[in-house]
C-alpha cells in the first residue's frame, strides 16, 4: 500500500494534470507548510505544494543567483520550464526572505490568473494572531472573487474536519515507528507525508485508512539500532532519509516542514473557523523562520521522548538563512538536554552523498560507542 503514496508522489505532476482534466477544477500551488490549504480546498480547488526537481537548473539562472536557496531555484526553474503548467493560481506566504521575494519574480515571469501573497507574522502572540486571522479573511475573500463562488462557513468547516482527519491518520501512521524495531521506515513515512501535500486529501485519507487497517508488517531489521530524528529545512524527496537509513539506523521521527511540521498540529474548531486556522498555522510546530527557537527545541525534545530518539541530525540546505542562523544554539540546547547532534549541509540535490554518508556513519559510531 505504501507504494501507492510513493507512486503518486513520483508522478505527481502528471497525476495532478489528470485530476484537473477529470474534474475541470482549479489547481492552486503553494509554498511552505504555513498556507491554510483548507481555504483553497473549500473554494473547490486542489492545493498542491510546490516542490523542486533533481534536474539541473537551466532557466532560473537568468533570474536567480546561484547563492540563493537551491530549493527555491529548483522550483522556479521547473515552473519556467513548464513543469507547473497545470497551476491556475499560486499562494506565496511570507515565510523566509527568499520565498517572500520570489513572489515578485514569480508574478512577473510565470504569469497566472491568481497569485496571492499571504502575510504571515513572525511573532506568535495575541496581536499577531489577530492580524493573521484578518489576513485569512482577506485570503478567503480573494479566493471567492477569483473562483466567483462564495466559501460558506459550512463548506470551510467540512474542509477543516477533512484536513484534521488527515493529520490524525498521519500521526497514527507515524506512531508505528514507536516500536523497536519500528514497523515503518522513516523514508517510507516521509513519502506518505509528501504525498499528502500534493494529493486530494479525500484520496489520501482513504489510502491511509486502508494502510492503518492492515496489521503492521514486522520489520526485518534488527531491533536496538540507533533511533534518529531528522530536523531541518526543506526536504522534498527521500534521498537523504534513505541515505541515513542505509547507515544502520532507524529514522523514527522528524522536525521537517514536509513531515511533522506539516501535519502534527490540529485545527481547533472551537476557536472559530478563521481563528482556529490562524492559531493552527501560526501556532504550530515552528519553522526556523518564526521567532521561537526555544519552542522548536521543546517540540524536538517532545518527539525525542515520544519516539525514544537517541540522536538528532540537523540538515540545512545551502544558503538557508533561518536554519543556518538557528543551528548553533539549537545544537547547544539539544546537547545540554543530552541529545547528540550531527549537522549536515547539503545542496538540495545531495551531490556529495559519499561525504554525507561518511559523516553519518561516524555519528552513528559515537552514539553506539556511547552505549558501550
Amino acid at each position: 500500500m505504501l507504494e501507492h503514496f510513493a507512486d503518486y508522489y513520483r508522478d505527481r505532476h502528471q497525476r495532478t494534470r489528470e485530476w484537473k482534466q477529470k474534474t475541470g477544477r482549479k489547481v492552486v500551488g503553494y509554498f511552505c507548510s504555513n498556507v491554510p490549504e483548507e481555504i483553497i480546498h473549500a473554494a473547490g480547488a486542489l492545493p498542491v505544494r510546490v516542490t523542486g526537481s533533481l534536474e539541473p537548473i537551466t532557466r532560473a539562472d537568468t533570474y536567480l543567483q546561484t547563492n540563493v536557496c537551491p530549493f527555491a531555484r529548483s522550483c522556479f526553474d521547473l515552473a519556467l520550464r513548464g513543469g507547473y503548467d497545470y497551476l491556475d493560481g499560486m499562494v506565496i506566504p511570507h515565510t523566509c526572505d527568499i520565498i517572500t521575494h520570489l513572489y515578485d519574480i514569480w508574478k512577473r515571469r510565470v504569469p497566472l490568473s491568481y497569485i496571492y501573497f499571504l502575510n504571515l507574522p513572525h511573532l506568535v502572540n495575541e496581536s499577531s494572531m489577530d492580524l493573521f486571522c484578518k489576513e485569512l479573511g482577506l485570503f478567503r475573500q480573494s479566493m471567492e472573487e477569483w473562483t466567483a463562488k462564495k466559501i460558506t462557513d459550512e463548506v470551510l468547516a467540512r474542509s477543516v474536519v477533512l484536513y484534521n482527519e488527515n493529520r490524525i491518520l498521519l500521526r497514527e501512521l507515524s506512531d508505528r515507528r514507536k516500536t523497536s524495531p519500528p514497523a515503518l521506515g522513516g523514508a517510507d513515512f516521509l513519502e506518505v507525508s509528501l504525498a499528502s501535500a500534493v494529493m486530494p486529501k479525500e484520496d489520501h485519507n482513504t489510502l491511509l485508512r486502508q494502510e492503518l487497517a492492515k496489521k503492521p508488517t514486522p520489520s526485518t531489521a534488527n531491533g536496538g539500532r540507533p533511533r534518529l530524528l531528522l530536523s531541518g529545512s526543506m526536504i522534498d524527496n527521500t534521498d537523504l532519509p534513505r541515505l541515513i537509513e542505509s547507515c544502520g539506523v532507524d529514522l523514527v521521527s522528524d522536525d521537517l516542514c514536509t513531515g511533522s511540521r506539516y501535519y502534527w498540529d490540529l485545527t481547533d474548531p472551537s476557536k472559530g473557523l478563521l481563528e482556529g486556522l490562524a492559531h493552527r498555522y501560526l501556532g504550530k510546530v515552528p519553522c526556523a523562520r518564526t521567532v521561537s527557537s526555544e519552542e522548536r527545541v521543546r517540540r524536538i525534545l517532545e518527539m525525542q521522548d515520544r519516539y525514544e530518539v537517541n540522536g538528532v541530525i540537523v540538515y540545512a540546505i545551502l544558503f538557508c538563512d533561518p536554519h543556518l542562523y538557528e543551528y548553533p544554539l539549537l545544537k547547544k540546547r539539544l546537547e545540554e538536554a543530552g541529545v547528540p547532534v550531527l549537522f549536515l549541509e547539503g545542496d538540495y540535490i545531495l551531490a556529495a552523498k559519499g561525504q554525507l554518508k561518511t559523516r553519518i556513519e561516524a555519528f552513528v559510531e559515537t552514539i553506539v560507542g556511547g552505549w558501550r
Partner: protein
Amino acid sequence: MAETKGSKKALQVSGEIFPMVKEYYLKAHEHKAQGKPVAWCGVAVPKELLLALDIYAMYPEHYSTICAIRKTAVEFCNYAEAAGYSRELCGYARTITGMVLGGEKAREIAPFGGMPDPDFLFITSCVCDTRLKWFEELQGHSGWPIQYLDFPEKLLSKGEAYATEAMNYYYRQLENLLSNLERQLGVKYDEAKLKAVMDRSWELRELELEILELRKAAPAPMTAADGFAVMFPRMYLSGTEKAVDFHRRMRDELKAKVGKGLGVLQNERFRLLWSGIPFWFNMGLINLFEDFGGVVVIDVTYTNFFRSERRYAEEPLKELAYRCTIGGLGITSLVDTNLFAAKEYKVDGAVLSFSSTCRPLYIDQLEVRNQLKEVYDIPSLLLESDMADERRYDAALVQANVNAFMEVLDQRLSHKK
C-alpha cells in the same frame, strides 16, 4: 586597483561625517556610564521613539561597516564561524555576533572601544527577516532582553484593507513596547517630546527630498560616495536638530554647486546608478569609474524617493506607525525603485553590487539587471563580494570587470554619435 581604500567625496559636508560618527560612538559610552539606557537596534526600528525616551540607540549594522573599514571585521567573523555560524550568513551578523562571542579579545581591537553592552536588543523584520534570527541568536548567547517589532511585508500589493490592519498591528506593538520599556527601564513616555522629534524628522525628510531633486543635475554635484557617507545622520540621527542642520547645509552646498553648474566631473561622460550595499572596506571603488569619465550619480538601496502622503502631527505615535508602515513605503520593489531612479537620474549604466551573503536584498538583483535592459536598454555591471567580510573580494577581477563595462559604455556612446 590592487588595494582597498576609502572614497573621495565631492561635498565639503561629507568631511563632517567621520567626526560625527566617532562622536556618536564615544558618547554612547558616556551615556552608559551615566546609567542611561542603551539599545542595540536594527536599522529600521522607529528611532524617533528611542530618541524621545532618551534611549541611546546603537546600530550593529552600522558598527559592522566601521569594523569593515577599520579591518577588524574578518577577525570577528572568525569568532562567529568558530561558534558554528555559516560563512554564508550575513557579513554584518557574523561581524557583530563574532564580536560578542569574542569577548575581551574582541573588545581590545573593536573600533571606538566597541559598543556599550545594551540594556535591550531591539529588532524589526523591516528590511529583511534574517535580522530577526540574528538578534534572536544574539539574545540567546548574551541573555540581554529583546524587543521585537514585526513588520508585515508588501503592503502596497496587499491593498488598503490589509495595509490599515498592518498599520494598526504595528501601532499596538509600539504601545506594547512603550509599556515594556517603562516597566523594565523606568523611562517615561512624553508625547510632546515625541511630537517635537517627529516634527524634526519630517523636516529632515523634506530636506532629503530637496537634495534628491538637486542630485538630478548634470553634471552631478555629488556621487554615491557622498551618498553612502551622509547616510549616517539621515538614517541614524533622524529626529535630531543635528541631522536637520547637517541636511540644510548639505542642501545649500548642493544648491550653490548646481547654480554654478559645478559637478564632480565637468566632462561627465557617463551617469551611473549604484544599487546594493557597497563594499564598505573598499569605498574607493565608487570613484574608480571617474577614471573613465563616469560618475555614480545616485545610490538606490538606502534611498526613499517618495514622501509620505500625510501626517498625523497631533498623534505622534500614530504618525510613527504610519510612517513605518504605509507612509514610508514608496515603491517597495527593488526592481521598480531602480527603474524609477534610472529614468529620473538619466543614467547610462548601473552598478549592481552583489553581496553574496545578503540574499534578501540581492535576490532581486538579476531581475534589476534584466528589467533595466528590457525596459530602458541600460547595461549593468554586477560586482560580487561581501559587504563587510573582505575575504570574498577579488580586486583584480573587479578591476577587469569595471574596465570591460566602461568599454561597453564607451562603445555605446560612440555609436550614439
